[in-house]
């Protein structure tokens, strides 16, 4: 039993060293500069995959592998998220008990606005995601909030994403130190290793997109949230951004935080901001 622990430690420190050596040369920066970060982030992927069209990055694994792309196009002919989309449309139009609807909570009636989420709420001083805003709208109208990882939330966000399809991601960072801090916190979360596997989001989605992890092809981090929410064949059901974060954590054997925890809201803020300009392609179908 003691030998096993040393084995664990050996692999842990070896992994730490191995990844540190192969990662891109870096120098610590102090001032938070989202604009430069976003440019560097996008250029990293554009140079690493020169023949992938910029807007194709939002197709995740399918931008990385032809055989997978063909299976995807086959699915997209009559996509499995069709039911969630219709359910979301119906829910969006059904008034709450008090007669109001989601349209009353959102600018432009909630149509074609998904590309502006998440946004930084200066009153609250925190990032507000689309899923959070939907539940707050429900609670403001006397309805019970939906689970962040279940189908109802996925159907609503699927419909809202659908109404924004093709529009470029357009996340704003106001000149507010708390917003810059949220961006930085999200970036830190993205690069921090966790779980017994000792992986960070970057270990898979920056170090080795396009490569296989068993049967799956890893998606590039650039534009990885543009297709959300996604119907995953693995779950044979819809998955919101919250569900994806929670399951990714447990895969690396890290205990997940509660959905819409600050860290998750900030990492969604970071990932969406660096994908500014790339089109919204949700809802998506994924392996």
């Amino acid at each position, binding site marked *: 039993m003691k030998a096993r622990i040393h084995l664990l430690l050996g692999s842990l420190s070896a992994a730490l060293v191995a990844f540190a050596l192969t990662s891109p040369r870096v120098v610590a920066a102090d001032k938070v500069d989202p604009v430069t970060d976003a440019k560097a982030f996008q250029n990293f992927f554009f140079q690493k995959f020169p023949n992938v069209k910029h807007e194709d990055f939002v197709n995740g694994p399918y931008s990385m592998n032809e055989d997978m792309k063909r299976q995807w196009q086959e699915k997209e*002919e*009559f996509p*499995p998220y*069709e*039911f969630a989309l*219709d359910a979301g449309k*119906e829910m969006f139009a059904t008034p709450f008990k008090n007669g109001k609807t989601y349209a009353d909570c959102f600018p432009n009636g909630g149509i074609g606005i998904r590309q502006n989420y998440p946004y930084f709420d200066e009153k609250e001083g925190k990032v507000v995601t689309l899923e959070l805003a939907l539940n707050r709208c429900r609670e403001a109208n006397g309805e019970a909030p939906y689970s962040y990882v279940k189908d109802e939330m996925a159907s609503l966000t699927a419909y809202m994403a659908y109404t924004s399809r093709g529009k470029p991601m357009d996340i704003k960072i106001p000149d507010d130190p708390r917003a810059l801090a949220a961006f930085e916190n999200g970036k830190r979360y993205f690069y921090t290793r966790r779980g017994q596997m000792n992986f960070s989001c970057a270990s898979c989605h920056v170090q080795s997109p396009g490569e296989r992890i068993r049967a799956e092809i890893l998606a590039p981090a650039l534009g990885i949230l543009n297709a959300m929410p996604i119907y995953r064949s693995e779950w*044979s059901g819809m998955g919101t951004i919250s569900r994806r974060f929670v399951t990714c954590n447990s895969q690396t054997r890290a205990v997940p935080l509660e959905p819409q925890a600050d860290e998750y809201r900030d990492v969604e803020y970071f990932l969406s901001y660096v994908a500014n300009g790339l089109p919204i392609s949700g809802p998506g179908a994924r392996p």
Partner: protein
Amino acid sequence: MASSIRVRATANGDITEVQALIQHPMDTGLVKDSKGEVIPAHFIQQLKFECNGKDVFVADWGTAVSKDPYVKFSFKGAKKGDELKISWTDNKGGSDTTTAKIA
């Protein structure tokens, strides 16, 4: 409640292409739920497509057909505006039917 059958039928020339996506769990009866109990088999056994009073396609399905099953085929002898009748029955006696105009 909206029908469990989504269908697209488009005619070009004499050939009509039909795609159908059906909302159904297609449980195999070999899977256990989180509490460890077996989810009983519940799957569509027969799916029939009729047009102008004649069967144009009949599917006999087993438990290996994916959840929310999808099927695509084409047939001759129909034209834009004709009506396509689609109906399915499953192993628990459940069923649904719908009609769609050929576009």
